[in-house]
């Protein structure tokens, strides 16, 4: 294989360097010594779906159109649905490489379902295991994978009930099984990778491991080297299990790299970094107390009684929980840290919209804890961070909390509270590592952008860099001799996939409200 791209969701040098120093990830330590590393700054917001989509398209969210795991049905709709590959408005590096005759496979990347028809193989990530059979490309790939010794497709793909535990927490007696599942899942992805490589030669392979993100969300207090002292016996056992996960991941990385040609290159990247979080900022409660939001009378006192902290499993409840005659702003998912304003299309360029936007932004920036410290550090309007053809699908405001955490969309008595334990939350600083022919050894580069990965991969494959990509090949990565014989060549543009937005069925507001009520009754949105 000429080029291998390994994604490690949520990897941060803060943890990785500590694990290398402790001898838990010796291969990664050697990889750093024999290659080049840098911090990799992600896009705003530092969230998995838009960040990986930016990595694989080389474009920011306003251009590729992915802002969250969910998206609005239409710019004026209050309804949301799961985002799919059809919502990715830009060409991916796997499609682009395929178009130039390269043989490609991509494993476990989000927003790849339904799988695009590339010159190679696709196993999408974030797909329910029950439907993985129809998610793979080509269509016979799933049956072939089932025959692979030791490969369990059920543990390869997503089980939504288990995924939710990462951010909402789980019982103490569930940690053990939950961590072991992630070890087995990464081993399953290794088997899928190994199978494909044994079948035929590929020019470009990409594989994503998402267990690091999941473990760090739930187990940050055991993993963070700054927090992992003074643990009781149970906590030490959970920490040891987490370390087993990283130890096994290191072995898997070592095996993957053995498949790269002697004149090939391996790149490792994360979509964002990680750090501690304990704040719970109840955004919809703040909006209510500031008269931007009115809860509907639900007959139950309206307060959330479930043990959830953020409301990951309760997205879209806003459609029936809020009084839409009196609500002017709302948050619908915890995973976007976004606030939507209720405004008609024709109002969006008017002074009332601008005034409301400005009032809410200023109010959010003035939210303070009991010590008088600010809780919200940044608030961006969508034209500031999502400029592009898909801007109108983005939240009107996107905020950053002081500890990098996600907002809670649940109704609460308090605007601000605390999690029972320190958890992990995303940070903008991810990791980038490179090793292979022409790449400098034992070198550290200044911070790079996640948008640089797409052009770098294309360069590694010997392809011209499309002029509409926003990142650039980090030439400091390479030795001078290599660059002379492999100069960066610009040429052409990407080919956007045909948008299907216009062909989607459109419902009126009454129909939408009826739909969301029924979805709630079915348990889909609650």
């Amino acid at each position, binding site marked *: 294989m000429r080029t291998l791209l390994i994604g490690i969701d949520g990897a941060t040098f803060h943890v990785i360097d500590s694990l290398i120093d402790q001898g838990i990830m010796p291969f990664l330590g050697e990889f750093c010594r024999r290659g080049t590393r840098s911090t990799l700054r992600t896009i705003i917001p530092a969230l998995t779906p838009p960040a990986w989509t930016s990595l694989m398209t080389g474009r920011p969210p306003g251009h590729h159109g992915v802002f969250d795991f969910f998206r609005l049905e239409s710019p004026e709709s209050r309804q949301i649905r799961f985002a799919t590959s059809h919502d990715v408005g830009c060409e991916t590096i796997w499609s682009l490489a395929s178009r130039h005759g390269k043989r490609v496979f991509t494993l476990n990347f989000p927003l790849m379902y339904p799988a695009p028809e590339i010159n190679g193989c696709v196993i999408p990530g974030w797909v329910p295991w029950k439907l993985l059979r129809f*998610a793979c490309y080509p269509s016979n790939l799933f049956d072939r994978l089932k025959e692979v010794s030791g490969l369990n497709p059920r543990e390869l793909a997503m089980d939504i009930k288990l995924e939710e535990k990462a951010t909402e927490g789980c019982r103490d007696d569930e940690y053990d099984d939950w961590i072991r599942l992630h070890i087995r899942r990464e081993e399953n992805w290794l088997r899928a990778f190994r199978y494909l490589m044994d079948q035929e030669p590929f020019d470009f392979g990409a594989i994503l491991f998402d267990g690091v993100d999941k473990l760090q969300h739930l187990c940050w207090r055991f993993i963070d080297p700054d927090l992992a002292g003074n643990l009781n016996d149970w906590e030490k056992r959970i920490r040891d299990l987490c370390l087993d996960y990283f130890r096994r991941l290191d072995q898997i990385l070592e095996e993957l790299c053995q498949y790269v040609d002697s004149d090939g290159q391996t790149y490792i990247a994360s979509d964002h970094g990680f750090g501690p979080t304990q704040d719970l900022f109840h955004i919809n409660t703040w909006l209510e107390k500031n008269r931007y939001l009115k809860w509907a009378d639900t007959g139950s006192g309206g307060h959330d009684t479930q043990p959830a902290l953020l409301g990951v499993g309760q997205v879209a409840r806003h459609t029936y929980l809020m009084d839409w005659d009196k609500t002017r702003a709302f948050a619908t998912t915890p995973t976007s840290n976004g606030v939507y304003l209720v405004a008609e299309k024709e109002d969006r360029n008017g002074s009332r919209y601008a005034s409301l936007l400005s009032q809410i932004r200023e109010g959010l920036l003035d939210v303070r804890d009991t010590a008088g410290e600010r809780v919200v550090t940044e608030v961006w309007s969508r034209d500031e961070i999502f400029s592009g053809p898909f801007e109108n699908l983005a939240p009107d405001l996107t905020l950053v909390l002081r500890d990098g955490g996600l907002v809670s969309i649940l109704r609460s008595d308090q605007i601000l509270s605390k999690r029972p334990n320190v958890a992990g939350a995303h940070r903008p600083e991810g990791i980038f590592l490179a090793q292979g022919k022409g790449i400098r050894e034992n070198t550290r580069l200044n911070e790079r952008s996640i948008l640089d990965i797409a052009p770098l991969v294309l360069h590694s494959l010997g392809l011209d860099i499309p002029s509409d990509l926003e990142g650039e090949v980090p030439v400091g990565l390479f030795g001078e001799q290599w660059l002379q014989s492999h100069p960066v060549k610009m040429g052409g543009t990407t080919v956007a996939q045909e948008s299907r937005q216009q062909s989607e069925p459109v419902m009126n507001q009454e129909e939408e409200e009826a739909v969301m009520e*029924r979805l709630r009754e079915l348990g889909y949105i609650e």
Partner: protein
Amino acid sequence: MNKSREEILKDVLNLLEQLAQDWDYQATVNEGTRIFGDLGFESLDAVVLGTAIQEHYKQQMPFAGLLAEIGQREVRDLSVAELVDFIHSHLDRQGIS
């Protein structure tokens, strides 16, 4: 191009039987099989099944509306026959692109 209800039923049974072989589902899938109660679907599974069906027919269909209709029932479930009727009515209305 158009499809009869019988042809759609055959397509859907074929699709579900292929999936069911991966789930350790022992019974035969037929028109009376319930998607949630018998096949053990979670809500997200149903959403992705809707996407798979739309991919198969290369046509968008209002699956959210279908789920809404189900929610009005005493027994909130969907039989294979009802799923087939839903697809049939929408393919009839819009044709296959």
